[in-house]
């Protein structure tokens, strides 16, 4: 006789899950961001120049777009086996690409296989974390989301060392073994039965994707807002450094601008997570506010003259707001769809942001080529985020 499902434990094993999600975030997004360091080595070996930048873009796109699959599978079979399998898939992707004989192999291995593995790992891990917490959920999610910043910090120099010692083939092989750690992280995601969980047997595969969530007006409003925000959110990841360089900063100056934004982002994830949980302001309002601030921050980055203090301040403001926004996006979900729908909603959120993510950076690059600098790019992506935040004001 099993005890009837109780509410989220809000602690206890939940902190272990938070640590696991932290590692998953680091081993997926953090790894993806650091891969950029290997791109010149790929270019040199395959004697191409720009096409290899698409390898990471492809991996990111696959990861985001395939996330609902990860969520659907974990609603069916539990997050644990899905994440563990995702780790193996990513591992295989890296190992396969270590033996690549052409750029196509890299696309297949890193872009498709590893991207899919990451999709199976990230959304279920985050969804599970949300289920383990209620009063301190946003803090826990914020904590987990700092994983990719911490991982990038460690992985970037480590990757350079691997490249210098083992070349890119050996580096990919060892990175694959590192990403295999997603599997033990998955093992830590103990299944949790909660009231409101949908019964497993009564639905078909499409229903498992959670598309029925779109029939809820609150979630649809949220979806629209998030898709718009996604159009602007990823642009700074790609174009903040080139923008700083365009303004006349040297390599280290541009790195400082990126660092200021990254540190602000990481710190804000924790602080806002803690703040949001205090419950002083309803989460949807906070979401709209920080979304708007992120949009304004990006407008500032684009409009601010020169390359010194003002640019750093704008980058810092953007970082702080974007960092506050991130855990809130996941934190509002239980309020919108109930704790039982969180797993599927998480996957859908990733997919929504990926739609914007596929549109934003290429549009930004196009605007830069047409107008000569990034001002228009940042104005446009800031506006995307502002309009998405405006829509968020319609949330209950």
């Amino acid at each position, binding site marked *: *006789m099993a*005890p*009837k499902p*109780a*509410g*989220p*434990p*809000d602690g206890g094993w939940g902190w272990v899950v938070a640590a696991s999600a932290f590692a998953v975030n680091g081993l997926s997004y953090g790894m993806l961001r650091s891969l950029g360091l290997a791109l010149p080595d790929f270019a*040199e*070996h395959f*004697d191409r120049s720009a096409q290899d930048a698409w390898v990471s873009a492809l991996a990111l796109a696959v990861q985001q777009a395939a996330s609902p699959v990860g969520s659907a599978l974990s609603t069916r079979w539990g997050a644990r086996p899905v994440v*563990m399998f995702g780790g193996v898939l990513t591992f295989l992707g890296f190992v396969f690409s270590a033996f690549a004989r052409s750029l196509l192999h890299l696309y297949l291995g890193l872009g498709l296989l590893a991207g899919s593995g990451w999709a199976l790992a990230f959304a279920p891990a985050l969804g599970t974390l949300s289920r383990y917490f*209620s009063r301190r959920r946003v803090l826990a999610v914020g904590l987990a989301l700092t994983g990719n910043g911490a991982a990038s910090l460690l992985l970037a120099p480590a990757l350079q060392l691997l*490249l*210098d*010692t*083992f*070349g*890119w*083939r*050996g580096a990919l*092989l*060892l990175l*694959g*073994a*590192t990403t*295999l*750690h997603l*599997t*033990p992280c998955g*093992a*830590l995601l*103990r299944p949790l039965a909660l009231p409101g969980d949908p019964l497993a047997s009564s639905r078909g595969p499409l229903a498992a994707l959670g598309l029925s969530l779109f029939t809820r007006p609150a979630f649809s409003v949220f979806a629209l807002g998030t898709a718009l925000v996604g159009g602007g959110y990823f642009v700074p990841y790609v174009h903040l450094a080139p923008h700083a360089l365009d303004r006349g900063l040297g390599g280290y100056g541009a790195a400082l601008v990126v660092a200021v934004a990254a540190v602000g982002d990481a710190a804000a994830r924790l602080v806002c997570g803690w703040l949001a949980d205090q419950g002083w302001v309803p989460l949807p309002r906070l979401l709209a506010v920080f979304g708007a601030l992120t949009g304004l921050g990006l407008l500032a980055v684009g409009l601010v003259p020169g390359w010194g203090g003002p640019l750093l301040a704008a980058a810092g403001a953007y970082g702080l707001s974007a960092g506050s926004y991130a855990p809130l996006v996941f934190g509002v979900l239980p309020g919108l769809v109930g704790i039982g729908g969180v797993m599927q909603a998480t996957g859908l959120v990733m997919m929504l942001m990926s739609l914007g993510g596929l549109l934003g950076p290429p549009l930004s690059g196009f605007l830069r080529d047409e107008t000569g600098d990034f001002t228009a790019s940042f104005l446009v992506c800031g506006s995307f985020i502002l309009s998405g935040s405006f829509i968020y004001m319609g949330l209950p």
Partner: protein
Amino acid sequence: EHSSVPVKKNITLERSSNIELTCQFTTSGDLNAVNVTWKKDDEVLENNSLINRTGNILYTQYKFTITKSNQMGSYSCFFGEKKEHRGTFHFKVPEIQGKHKPIVTYVGDSTILACKCQDCFPLNWTWYSSNGSVQVPVDTQMNKFYVISGAHGNETKLKITQLSEEDRGSYWCHAVFQLGESENLIELVVLSYLVPLKPFLAIVAEVILLVAAILLCEMYTQKKKKQPDEGKEFEQIEQLKSDDSSNGIENNAPRHRKNSVTSK
């Protein structure tokens, strides 16, 4: 070119050119007492120089034509006896840019070594390899070496296929100009797959152990939970209450009391 304090200027030259070097010297003393000499490296050059004195400024110009590589070097104008009152012009052939870090590859792989120079047009590129101090031309007749020239003549690539451990070492690309040669060193490292394989297997083994440990640990704690449940509904109810987070606060007290009784 002007120089009023000891100044150096670097000039990059590829092919025969007519050269005009100008030095300007300003002083408050007597200009007529100042002796003007032009030197190449340490040899004094005779007579081709023009000297003009106006007011406080002494102006000298040296004209000549460079056609051979032995004419490259340092040309200096000297004013008077003091070593500081001079300007130096260094003539060099263009330098080649290439990798500073060794290229790491694996047995059976292929690789491309590239050399490039900005805004220069060498007459010819040649590749050498060396396993010590002697440079030996790369044998392009062999199937494994291909030299690929860039579209604009300012770059060259050496493609090596079917790499083996003997191929490792230093490779030099030489750019031949009318006025001299420029070279650049690229180091090639060829590893066997066993090199990264060992740490790789170590990490995979560690992951497998971790997963096993986590799952075993969990099975163990599940067993511990199940044993006291045999027939004790009393404690099952206690479990239910303590899991119910909405009542968490009120139940803490009674739960603690019960625990202190049972855990001796």
